[in-house]
């Protein structure tokens, strides 16, 4: 069953086509990778799904419902959360507060309730904090809960972004270069985490990644973009040997030699 369906998605910036006629079917509870050289339009694609950009044409369906025309926060409510290529944490907030912000749309705690310290609000807040703490345990940041997010190490910031995103209880999680800047050891941990989220938290994962080892290892399905166009799609093994993909990455002639 497809949870996310993208049909004919196109984005034009002035005369430049950042994405042209992208079609994708993402199966529920799968791990899908979107790869391609720099400037291929991968992040633009994510930005359209999360409504940061409005598509020029095409449609995005989550469980059969169109997401086009919604505001970013409404998309989150529908069940899509994401992380960012250039980490976007709330750097002055504590680690735990960052996760709590992720719960914004489903936390039943109005400001009127907070003002009068209504029991329901207090209860909701307390539970949210405990839940946030568990999420931090899950990604391995529990000891740093009171630290400012901006003070964390790079790898820790990436994991906090993931924790914050799962706090929004997404059905689909978009990870934009989650392993960028990580050493092999950190990447290994990340791979485990992604696997774990799929099996234990029942989240469908779509990721953009340049680390081919990671991509080939965890993806069920891969889409390859180049110059905003979809040039290939298939299982990791098909992609590995696809001449068009090798050409896009390494240039013409690489196929013959390589």
């Amino acid at each position, binding site marked *: 069953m497809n949870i996310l369906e993208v049909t004919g998605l196109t984005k034009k910036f002035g005369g430049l086509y950042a994405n042209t006629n992208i079609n994708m079917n993402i199966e529920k509870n799968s791990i899908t990778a979107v790869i391609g050289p720099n400037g291929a339009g991968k992040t633009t694609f994510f930005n359209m799904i*999360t409504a*940061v950009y409005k598509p020029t044409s095409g449609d995005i369906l989550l469980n059969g419902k169109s997401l086009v025309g919604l*505001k*970013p*926060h409404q998309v*989150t409510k529908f069940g899509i*959360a*994401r992380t*960012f290529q250039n980490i*976007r*944490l*709330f*750097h*002055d*907030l*504590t680690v735990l*507060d960052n996760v*709590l*912000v992720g719960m*914004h*749309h*489903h*936390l039943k*705690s109005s*400001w009127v309730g*907070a003002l009068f310290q209504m029991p329901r*609000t207090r209860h909701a*807040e307390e539970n949210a*904090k*405990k*839940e*946030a*703490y*568990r999420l931090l*345990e*899950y*990604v*391995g940041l*529990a*000891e740093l*809960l*009171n630290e*400012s997010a901006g003070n964390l*190490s790079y*790898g820790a910031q990436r*994991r906090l972004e993931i924790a*914050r*995103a799962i*706090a*929004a*209880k997404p059905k689909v999680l978009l990870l934009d270069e989650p392993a960028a800047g990580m050493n092999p*050891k*950190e990447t*290994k*941990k990340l791979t*485990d*985490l992604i696997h*774990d989220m799929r099996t*234990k*938290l029942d989240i469908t994962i779509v990721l953009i990644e340049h680390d081919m080892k990671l991509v080939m290892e965890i993806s069920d399905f891969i889409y390859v973009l180049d110059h905003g166009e979809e040039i290939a799609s298939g299982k990791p093994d098909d992609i590995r040997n696809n001449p068009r993909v090798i050409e896009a990455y390494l240039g013409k002639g690489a196929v013959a030699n390589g």
Partner: protein
Amino acid sequence: MRKLVDLFSKNKKAQLLLFIVYVAVSSLSLILAQQSVVAFLLLLFSILLLYFLKLSTKAKWIIGLVIVAVLIPFSASQGQAYESYMDVATLVGIYCAMALGLNIVVGFAGLLDLGFIAFFAVGAYTYGIFASAQASKFLHFGHFPLSGESFWIFILIGGIVAAIFGILLGIPVLRVKGDYLAIVTLGFGEIIRIIFNNLDKPVNITNGSMGIASIAPPKIFGIVIANASQFYYVALAIFLVVVYIVTRLEHSKIGRAWKAIRDNEIAGQAMGIPLVKTKLIAFAIGASFSGMMGVVFAAKQTYIDATSFTLLESTTILVMVLLGGMGSVPGVILGAAVVTILNLQVLTEVSNWLNQLNTNGVISIPDALSPAKMQRFIFGLLLILFALYRPKGLIPAKNQKYDVNKLKKSTTKSVFVEPQVSNDKKASGGSEI
């Protein structure tokens, strides 16, 4: 010497004892030397010392309330300067509450608002028009002026009207960000002032540049509140309510959302925060505090005109927030107190002193250089110095710390993760890097 410092920084009892001695000495000196502004300021300063004492929050609040509500008025009441002291203290309360309102907009939500005084004006005019004969000039029903008893309900009405203005302003204005927002709000502040200054034709609503005079002072149980010493308690009560609201909101869902969009708008939206709504709530709540204090201001002055609501006032409040520490509640209170006292007491005192020297022929300073006239210069200088050496303000904003042990004690079942799973994870893959 170091031993002594150590003793006081660690020992609670020693601290408390020293504090009590300090308060006793400063209040006694104020009682004995009523003209001494220094003694009055030292007594006010004790509140700041109290903030840094190692006591429980509850104890600090109780001691602070006793000092503010009993000791300061009593010590100051022994001489002729009583009313002028209380006038300053009242204005400190008013400005603190306003600065806390602006702190929500600028400090929490990160929206630079240079026209904040407009909401103060809205509040002031709301009460001014209906609590004076002014309303009968354009309303041909009802019986105006309303009596001073209506003041209490007007605090609420003033807040609501200002909040509505805040929302109306916010809807178009919040489309722009950063510097542009600052300019647009600055323009709005000026527009409001100019409208109030000219709204005497075709229908006379604000009495134009003549201002509104003889506004009814508040009345409670038949007692008219007309003196600064009585207003002091009104301002204090509203100030306490505002502090309560602000601290509650800061640590609630909406407070986190404000700070989140301040830190990163795109990520905030991606986490499900509705941008416009969240910003509008910040604008409305900030404006309502300002509006409430506007009502108090109008009732206290009994006369208002548009000259009280100039751009300089907006910047003054912004300086309070920046000086104290953006996003820091105790910082903003301190900033507001420092700026107000600097304005009303220190600068005027220094001016008087220099004038005296002038007339005695000791030194000669041209009138244009009198400190009271250099307010803007001094604010500018302060801002530059703070930007250079203390960009986070006098008392920088601190994050709330969570108690790990409380969070570990989990009674409900998590939707996300079973406890043993999280332990597994910690052991296998997710531990520290």
